[in-house]
């Protein structure tokens, strides 16, 4: 990837990273700020980042960390961080997609982040662990918990192995 040009990289991934952050529980401003800052940091050390296996993975990880910092800070100031979405409609015999949305919205922030990084950004466990500042074993456990509660919420079928 050594020929990767930053501007092209940004073009390809800024939107994706922003969307992932929203799915992880950020509001749009938080998502935009965290993504922009993460790309800024990537540009600062671009020679290193572009030679990584997954430059986008690095950005996802940094952005997610920034998001968590933001939440921590706003929590300290008495505002609410990411909350499970209100008004989850449990009456539904709805399509699976809506159920996943609902199920994700009810997950605690850490589980939500882990799910987004692992299954949307498709990062290896080790990178997810980096992003969350914990061991890969902890990530597995977190994903497992997430799957469990989602299964409960989804009232769904088969378990999937958290460690692909």
């Amino acid at each position: 990837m050594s020929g990767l040009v930053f501007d092209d990289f940004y073009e390809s991934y800024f939107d994706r990273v922003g969307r992932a952050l929203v799915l992880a529980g950020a509001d749009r401003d938080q998502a935009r700020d965290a993504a922009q800052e993460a790309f800024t940091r990537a540009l600062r050390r671009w020679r290193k980042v572009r030679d990584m296996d997954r430059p986008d993975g690095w950005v996802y990880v940094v952005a997610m960390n920034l998001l968590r910092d933001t939440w921590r800070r706003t929590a300290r100031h008495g505002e609410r961080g990411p909350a499970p979405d209100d008004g989850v409609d449990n009456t539904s015999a709805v399509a699976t997609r809506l159920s996943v949305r609902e199920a994700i919205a009810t997950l605690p922030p850490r589980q939500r982040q882990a799910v987004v990084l692992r299954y949307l950004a498709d990062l290896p466990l080790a990178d997810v662990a980096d992003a969350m500042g914990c061991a890969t074993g902890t990530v597995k456990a977190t994903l497992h918990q997430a799957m469990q509660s989602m299964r409960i919420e989804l009232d769904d079928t088969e378990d999937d192995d958290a460690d692909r």
Partner: protein
Amino acid sequence: MPTDELRGELTMLADEVEPFTGDVQAVHRRVRSRRIITAALVVAALVVVVASTVAVAGHRDAGKVNVTGTGSKDVSLALITHVDAIVVPATSDVQDVLDASPFVAEYARIPRADRSSDSLLLRPKDAVCALQQRDGYAVVAKSDPSALTAHLTLALAGRATVYDVSDQYGSDIEFFMKVDASRAQTDSLRNALAADGDVSSFVHLSRNDAYAIFKKDFADQPALVASTKPSDLPESFRVILEPGRSIAAVVHRYANAAGLDTTITANGEARFHPGLMPASSGPAVSPCSKR
């Protein structure tokens, strides 16, 4: 639900999110301005070294004047209030040169300290990295700091490295404006600082001043210098407080000043406005990895 199906669902959910429109030029601008800011952070980190050592030395000596070495100009770090140059490593050989140099007023030993975890050092000055490896000396010039650096660099060639920190060390707080801050915003902060009773003195650094510092700090990266214009860099205010006043209180006072981007303090803290982004995030890229 199989994992792949979950992936698919997540992707669809992500697709439903309203698209984000990026601004890559804003990223480039932010990086340029932050490069000069982190150069200042390095200095802040140096101040931390000196300050923490002063605390230790002060405690140990209970305020006594302490001549730590055999050299005639060797003093306790606690007695030094200003540093013009950093010399690494601290050997008796180097000490002899410092003692004999007519340009050296006094100097103090800086103990080597492992600051590899210091995440503030995004783009460290070599001096900070060198100080992680070896003890060094903080040197005070008799009069002209640049003459001191020039003299020591020659005299110590091959034996030690000399880092000129004379123009950067010494303020309690540096306020960086946004690169696109308006004239009115800059004037407003200037007036506020001038009227602030906690502020002893302050210096305004124009974009051209910033550019001069930038050129010096990045002399080893000509392409970067060539691609940067003074207008890419932020104006700033270097502020010295009255003795005993709280840095944190003054920083807090201006936290929401219009047009303010970043505040750097002598205790090594950086505040990026808006949305303080501490540099603690992400996989570390070691600041001194080249060594």
